[in-house]
């Protein structure tokens, strides 16, 4: 695996402004995606993981959404500054996007074939016949039986899992360098989820694209990711290789999250561990650690300043004062 980044996000801030108040959904998020790797993005609802990824491709309606700061470098261009025509060339062609809900993200009045051929014809300039042939190949690639015939079917004639396969086929149509998948298996049953996960592993072996996989399920990430970032309150609170993260979770939030999970294997606790309280509502940019109110290790400094990401070991960083080099409390964590 090559380590050159294909996508680099630096200091991204997205704010939703309404007349009454502003919601700071993404606060200074930076990460990079290396060629061919799968980056898992984990967090609970409202942690800003989807908004971050939508901001990358400027998919959020503006207003109310506003990208206040940051750079998103892809193929030598800053996507934040790019004009509409340039963005259109990137969307679908350079970066493919799979949305969460396969029931609502396909257009019900067009055939699946039409929706698959659309990016092929606009981005690659294929003619009708060539596009149809390629579309059938794509359906075969994602494991849909009798692909040629199914091109003329409408989305409602497919089941949820099959529709998600179609979504993946559309995202992969122009052979993108980066695939962003936003909770692609959340709406699916576990046995169907297992099919999709297997498909993605298989496609990565065949096509070698880099993938950003957004999920709230720590189990899914454990099975497919190379590296993981954990998000909380619109910030990256921990960043690590997948094995390091699960073996040595460093941010108190990551650890609490892992402890609340019951499993289907291993010992079974008498009571589940819980994280007391609720995530904060971000009406202002965070001036203190956003997890302070729910944290078991909170001290004065957490309420005074927002900790940056401290590297604990190379490749593993956590945004916690206890992880800072001068704190001396690293062994506590």
């Amino acid at each position, binding site marked *: 695996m090559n380590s050159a980044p294909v996508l680099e996000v630096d200091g991204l801030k997205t704010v939703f402004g309404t007349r009454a108040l502003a919601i700071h959904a993404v606060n200074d998020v930076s990460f990079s995606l290396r060629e061919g790797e799968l980056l898992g993005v984990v967090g*609970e*609802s409202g942690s800003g993981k989807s908004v971050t990824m939508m901001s990358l491709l400027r998919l959020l309606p503006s207003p109310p959404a506003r990208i206040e700061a940051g750079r998103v470098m892809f193929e030598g261009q800053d996507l934040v500054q790019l004009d509409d025509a340039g963005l259109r060339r990137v969307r679908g062609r350079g970066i493919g996007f799979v949305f969460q809900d396969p029931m609502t993200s396909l257009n019900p009045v067009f055939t699946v074939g039409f929706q698959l051929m659309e990016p092929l014809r606009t981005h690659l300039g294929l003619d009708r016949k060539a596009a149809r042939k390629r579309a059938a190949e794509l359906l075969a690639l994602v494991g849909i039986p009798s692909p040629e015939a199914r091109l003329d079917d409408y989305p409602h004639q497919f*089941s949820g*899992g*099959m529709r998600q396969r179609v979504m993946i086929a559309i995202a992969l149509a122009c052979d993108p360098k980066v695939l962003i998948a936003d909770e692609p298996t959340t709406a699916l*049953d*576990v*046995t*169907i*989820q*297992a*099919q999709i*996960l*297997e498909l993605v592993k298989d496609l990565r072996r065949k096509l070698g694209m880099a993938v950003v996989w957004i999920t*709230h*399920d*720590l*189990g*899914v*990430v*454990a*099975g497919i*990711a190379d590296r993981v970032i954990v998000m909380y309150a619109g910030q990256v609170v921990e960043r690590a290789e*997948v*094995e390091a993260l*699960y073996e040595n979770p460093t941010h108190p939030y990551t650890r*609490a*999250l*892992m402890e*609340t*999970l*019951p*499993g*289907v*294997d291993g010992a*079974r*606790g*008498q*009571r*589940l*561990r*819980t*994280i*007391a309280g*609720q995530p904060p509502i971000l009406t202002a940019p965070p001036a203190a650690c956003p997890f302070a109110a729910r944290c078991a290790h909170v001290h004065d400094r957490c309420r005074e300043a927002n900790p940056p990401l401290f590297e604990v070991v190379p490749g593993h960083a956590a945004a916690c004062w206890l992880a800072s080099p001068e704190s001396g409390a690293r062994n506590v964590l």
Partner: protein
Amino acid sequence: MSFDHAQPRETLVSVSGLSVHFPIYAGLIRRQVGTVRAVDGVTFDVARGETLGLVGESGCGKSTTGRAILRLVEATSGKILMAGQDIASLGAEPLRRMRPRMQMIFQDPHASLNPRMTVGSIIAEPLTEHGTLRGRARQRRVEELLDAVGLNPDFANRYPHEFSGGQRQRIGIARALALDPDFIVCDEPIAALDVSIQAQVVNLLEELQERLGLTYLFISHDLSMVRHIADRVAVMYLGKIIELATRDALYDAPKHPYTQALLSAVPIPNPRVEATRRHIILKGDVPSPANPPSGCRFRTRCPIAEARCAAEEPAWRKLEDGRHVACHFAT
């Protein structure tokens, strides 16, 4: 949790041969053209004080089973005995008198609370409808219930929109507890909540069970949460229960090929385990319950299906270790 398997317990709810079929109408004169067999002959008992987990994928009929037991949908056939009375054939008034003993906690805390009613009146509604409590006594009971589910009693005058998802689910639980029920059907009570909030609600349900001696039918698609909360687990597929066993037996050594596939499909939050674990990937999708396969309903996706499975429906057998399985090959 306090359930003791060694001691035989009194059966509180006994369901036998329960079926719920929904007619399909089509055409100009809305003629019936078919039947969706949502629940097709399920049989199980729930002992007093235990939690029976009911798991399965979407569309397998687990929620319909729960609703049929409380007669929120009418059963097509079958018996539902609760404390000796057959709920399925009860008339309107006797059924109303049974209602306080059996309650439900719903899946979606955003849709199951009336947005125009205050939390106090939502919780007081069952008391008004069934109880004899009035005025100050009723108000005290509402405060007591709010306190029992971990909410501030001063919140009684607020409206549901002022609460978060987890808090709303607590309000739903308080409402279900209002009439001191014996039996509560929990229909996916944590599916709409975030993981850190799920644990809070599950712990609350367990505490209340210990304190009040409640009996739960816990319906969920989350196999790891069911493993945590249930004493026994029933697995449903396409309208039928295919395996029913004590929790440890089911999770340690599943016997039905569907249960095996289902458990192997749950991702384990440990990269080392995931890297070496064998997943059983089922082919295809769940068939339509309007037109289920002949013989064994799982045979179209089953990795070990043979000709016999298409011809002959597997019997609901009791194995040596006491569990029930519907598969020709399970031993």
